């Protein structure tokens, strides 16, 4: 039996090593953000919080972050709003070409991101549509719309349609049934769909880089430029703040809506 125990040890050890690998760069980034050195150095020889105040020196970081927030929020809201009826049709009804339609709607996940950016860039040039923040919005919506469709279908398949029948048989109108029963059962799917859409849009670089024109810029583009031009640990301070905010959002969404359990089952 000793070989079997060895095997168990090996698997367990490998699993924990992989988890360590997953958190290692994050922990290191946090440590380096408090370093007093002008360049990345570990372990830091002195401590400071200067890099946190230096975040303000990243080119246009304020307006870039505001634009990224606006686009991410609108992307999330609009794709979820369009995904609700589409997911309802796909999960609850049967119709011709259903497989093809669902494959089409879910396909942007598997297509190279820069392909979406390049295709939309050329399409806007070809049709003569103007390049402004709406171009960015359109690009991000194409990229992320598959996520709310997916999470909403997962929510709908887990939900219980007999509750809707019960409401209808008790005299509720179709709209009332939808509003009070269907929508409330959809909440976890709505929240995780919105979160995915928001976070993927907020972080997007490969599509934005093709669609920003006339002085518009987004947060990932400016942070990326800073990282490729400067060697100081300012991006480490920025990353630390980013990770803290994202962790808080994920923990809240899991406690309140069970987002993680839905994604794992779905």
């Amino acid at each position, binding site marked *: 039996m000793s070989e079997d125990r060895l095997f168990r040890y090996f698997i367990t050890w490998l699993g924990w090593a992989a988890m360590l690998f997953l958190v290692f760069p994050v922990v290191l980034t946090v440590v380096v953000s408090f370093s007093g050195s002008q360049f990345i150095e570990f372990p830091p020889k002195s401590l400071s919080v200067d890099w946190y105040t230096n975040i303000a020196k990243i080119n246009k970081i304020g307006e870039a972050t505001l634009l990224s927030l606006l686009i991410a929020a609108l992307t999330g809201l609009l794709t979820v709003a369009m995904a609700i009826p589409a997911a309802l049709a796909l999960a609850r009804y049967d119709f011709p070409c259903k497989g093809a339609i669902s494959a089409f709607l879910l396909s942007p996940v598997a297509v190279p991101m820069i392909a979406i950016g390049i295709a939309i860039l050329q399409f806007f040039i070809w049709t003569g549509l103007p390049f402004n923040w709406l171009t960015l919005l359109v690009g991000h919506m194409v990229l992320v719309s598959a996520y709310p469709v997916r999470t909403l279908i997962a929510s709908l398949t887990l939900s219980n349609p007999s509750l809707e029948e019960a409401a209808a048989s008790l005299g509720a109108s179709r709209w009332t049934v939808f509003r009070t029963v269907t929508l409330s059962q959809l909440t976890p799917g709505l929240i995780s769909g919105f979160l995915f859409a928001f976070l993927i849009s907020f972080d997007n670089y490969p599509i934005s880089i093709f669609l920003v024109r006339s002085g518009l810029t987004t947060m990932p583009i400016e942070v990326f430029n800073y990282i490729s031009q400067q060697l100081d640990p300012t991006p480490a301070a920025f990353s630390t703040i980013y990770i803290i905010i994202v962790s808080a959002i994920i*923990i809240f969404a899991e406690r309140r809506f069970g987002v993680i359990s839905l994604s794992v089952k779905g």
Partner: protein
Amino acid sequence: MAGAATEATMPGSAGVPDLHGPAPKRQRYSGNRLLMILCLLLPLLGFMAVFYAAPFIYLTQESFRSWEGEDVAQVEPTLDYYIKTFTSSRTSRAFVRTFRISLISTIIALIICYPVALLLIRAGPKVRAGMLLVIFISLASSLIVRNYGWLVVLADQGPVNQLLVALGITKRGLRMVYSEGATIVALIHYIMPFVILPIYGSLLRIPDSYGEASVSLGAGPWMTLRKIIFPLSMPGVFGGTILSFAICMSAFVTPLMLGSPATAMMSQVAAEQLLVQQNFPKGSAIVVILTVSTFLVVVAYGVIVRRVMKVDV
């Protein structure tokens, strides 16, 4: 899948199973119902037809054009840029490199993620919740932030180099960033959640009794894993690795941050054609080749897993 629960459906509709349920009986599509379904689908489908399907059709068409300096010459469709992509040493090498990096990253990610999924299954509820939280935060964190983390870890004065020097393996720090190896490490880190979660999902569906039966019949843990658990978790392995491979094939930000021009991947070469050279047909051709070849690998992989390994995924 919840077969029984989907027998009943929304008021006013005939019994229809869910998306993955058994094939429905032939039924009459009343005009009214089709119209309602169309209305439900219309907002998203219409949006995607205009801003996703149409641009891709235009992109494909563009890739068959020839290009003369600033103008796109209106001549017969040509395969020029497809041929050039494979004959030019820069693009053909980028193509091979992209495949190699994607394959290596996916295989290593599978090897280190499968034990994580096994740990998740065996862990108590608190440890499991904590691990899932870490994996989800990693998934939700910015790609640029995560890649920056690797720039820190692999930096000339970074912890890995300090350790190597302290252990006396090297005298001075090694140059680890801006290389193919650094790109692979960061890509593995990026795709880990996409590999762990589907495998964990499929392990959840295997009843405990299967493993217990195997052990009680005298099979050790290794035999049980190889003969019972791994084949049954194949749908998760397939789903996770296929998505990871597609993500690596189209990687753009990671090789840009952790690689160098000498280790460029296909997305970088295509972007360079469009943003720097302004050669739209060539950039489009590279993008089409990248998309189609990724798709072909996905299909071939599916066929191999189904036919050769005889696993239904």
